[in-house]
């Protein structure tokens, strides 16, 4: 399985090429092709994880040209971790989609929906495994275009506008990404990440401003992609109008944006540059602190469940960025672990909200009254995921925040520790409001049990259980994150 690094990307792509062809005649098989392609990439991700744990970082040269002449794929523990998270969550979102889109999507859109989903997954996986800066740009564009297209799938009012605003904002980011790549190419003559890292110190000595400008462009580009606080304007509208499984995939998009930032900051620019002359990393952590507080406070004021979850996402991207900005082992571990915990928990919450809309047609939080008795299993999963997001002990959300707090203590910035704790309390408040309404709100009318269909329930429950189980056996994800962080910090 030495070809797993490329196959993990090509499986969804080839599936995506096949689906429009199939959709012309046999539309009902599209789902199975999509499921098979995503399932294959899960298998290849598992293979990658296995071989990374066994033999360390994998290098794969596409086309047989040795780097830096050809494109190199580099799978270190962190990449394998991202692959697994992305492909697993996509698989669950895809499984959930089958029943969901039958009711919620207009007729005849299933083909393009699955095509887009596979392209999005493939692009995200492509970003996760790549070791080449320009390839990162290309893969980013693939998943971005797929994400823009998935937003207006349901044809809700205002969805085209949300998609358009997302496109314009994100294209500024990706244009700057290309420009930054060009700047780095200009002063180093290479596009390979490892090669760039080796040649940047010299380039920085000769052309410091070019390198710093490139760094600024990358920060803006990935800041937009990952919805970092002042650049998050696209996110609430997108999450509000998008189908629920697409909202889950969008959380993956923001995570992969954060991952790309980690790659560029630590694997390309390197520690001396981002903490030295211009303190990029500390600035990032302060922006993240602002994101945590602002996102949580705004989430408290929302009346629409999807919008509330969206602002909560802004806050939680802040946690990931805080971990990156701390740039110490414990903090980075916490940040990367938070990628996992947030993807699982927020994925589960979005799927639950989607199930509520599917069954009861409810979006307003005030209407959640008594829902805990109508959809007990879904709402139990909601509660569990909310506990993980708020950081209540046995869950994986607690572990990631715990590591973040330890990292903040290590750097000695008590303000950041206070922000982490305050953010957790605010998050708990946000979700407690919903949960209290669900279970203790006055019930009226006949109380029917109406769980969503099995195809939707299974992904919800799986994600919720994963939040709890991975929190108890936190050593499992840490066995990948730990080595990943050590590789990043060059230890």
């Amino acid at each position: 399985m030495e070809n797993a690094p490329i196959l993990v990307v090509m499986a969804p792509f080839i599936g995506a090429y096949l689906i429009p062809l199939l959709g012309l005649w046999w539309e009902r098989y599209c789902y199975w092709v999509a499921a098979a392609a995503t399932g294959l990439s899960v298998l290849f991700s598992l293979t990658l994880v296995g071989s990374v744990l066994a033999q360390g970082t994998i290098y794969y040269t596409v086309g047989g040209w040795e780097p830096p002449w050809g494109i190199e794929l580099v799978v270190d523990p962190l990449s394998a971790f991202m692959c697994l998270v992305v492909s697993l969550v996509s698989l669950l979102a895809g499984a959930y989609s089958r029943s969901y889109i039958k009711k919620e999507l207009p007729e005849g859109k299933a083909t393009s929906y699955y095509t887009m989903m596979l392209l999005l997954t493939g692009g995200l996986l492509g970003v996760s495994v790549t070791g080449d800066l320009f390839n990162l740009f290309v893969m980013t564009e693939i998943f971005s275009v797929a994400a823009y297209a998935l937003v207006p799938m349901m044809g809700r009012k205002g969805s085209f506008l949300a998609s358009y605003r997302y496109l314009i904002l994100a294209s500024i980011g990706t244009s700057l990404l290309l420009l930054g790549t060009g700047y780095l190419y200009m002063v180093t003559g290479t596009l390979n990440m490892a090669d760039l890292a080796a040649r940047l110190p010299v380039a920085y000595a000769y052309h410091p401003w070019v390198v710093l400008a490139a760094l600024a462009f990358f920060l803006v580009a990935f800041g937009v992609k990952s919805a970092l606080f002042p650049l998050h304007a696209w996110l609430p509208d997108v999450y509000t109008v998008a189908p629920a499984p697409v909202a889950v995939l969008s959380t993956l998009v923001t995570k992969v944006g954060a991952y790309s930032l980690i790659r560029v900051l630590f694997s390309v620019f390197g520690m001396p540059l981002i903490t030295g002359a211009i303190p990029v990393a500390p600035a990032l952590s302060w922006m993240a602190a602002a994101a945590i507080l602002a996102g949580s406070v705004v989430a408290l004021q929302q009346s629409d469940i999807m919008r509330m979850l969206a602002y909560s996402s802004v806050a939680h991207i802040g946690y990931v960025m805080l971990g990156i900005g701390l740039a110490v082992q414990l903090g980075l571990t916490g940040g990367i672990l938070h990628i996992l915990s947030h993807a699982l928990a927020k994925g589960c919450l979005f799927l639950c909200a989607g199930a509520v809309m599917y069954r009861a047609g409810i979006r307003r939080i005030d209407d959640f009254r008594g829902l805990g008795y109508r959809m007990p299993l879904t709402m139990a999963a909601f509660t569990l995921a909310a506990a993980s997001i708020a950081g209540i002990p046995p869950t994986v959300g607690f572990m990631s925040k715990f590591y973040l707090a330890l990292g903040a203590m290590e750097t000695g910035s008590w303000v950041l520790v206070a922000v982490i704790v305050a953010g957790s309390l605010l998050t708990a408040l946000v979700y407690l409001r919903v949960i209290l309404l669900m279970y203790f709100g006055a019930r009226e009318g006949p109380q029917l049990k109406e769980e969503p269909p099995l195809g939707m329930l299974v992904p919800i429950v799986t994600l919720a259980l994963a939040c709890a189980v991975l929190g108890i056996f936190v050593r499992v994800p840490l066995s990948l994150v730990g080595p990943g962080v050590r590789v990043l910090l060059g230890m």
Partner: protein
Amino acid sequence: MSDLVIPGNVPYFISVALLLIGLYAMVARRNLIKKIMGLNILSTSVFLFLIAVADKRGGAPPITVPGVDLYVNPLPHTLVLTGIVVALALTSFALVLVIKIYQEHGTLDADRLMKL
């Protein structure tokens, strides 16, 4: 007249100017189609920059011809080719969205759309 040499990195400055114009159009112009035009100007400015990076004084176009030694750098050209395709992809999809927005709301003015 033609041997008058303009000093400095003129193409780079031109690309900076174009980038700022494009950025202005994307952020400040209220018409949605103008924003897309701005996106195109922004990306062509990046392409101009990359092509200018590739240029060598006295270099030949990057097609192997016997007896020529000095070719310009072909790598940025391929990057730009890819970039042009990506820009086309974004433009086409954005324009379709604009058509749909117009059908839904009856206006292309960003401020008016925000108020809806």
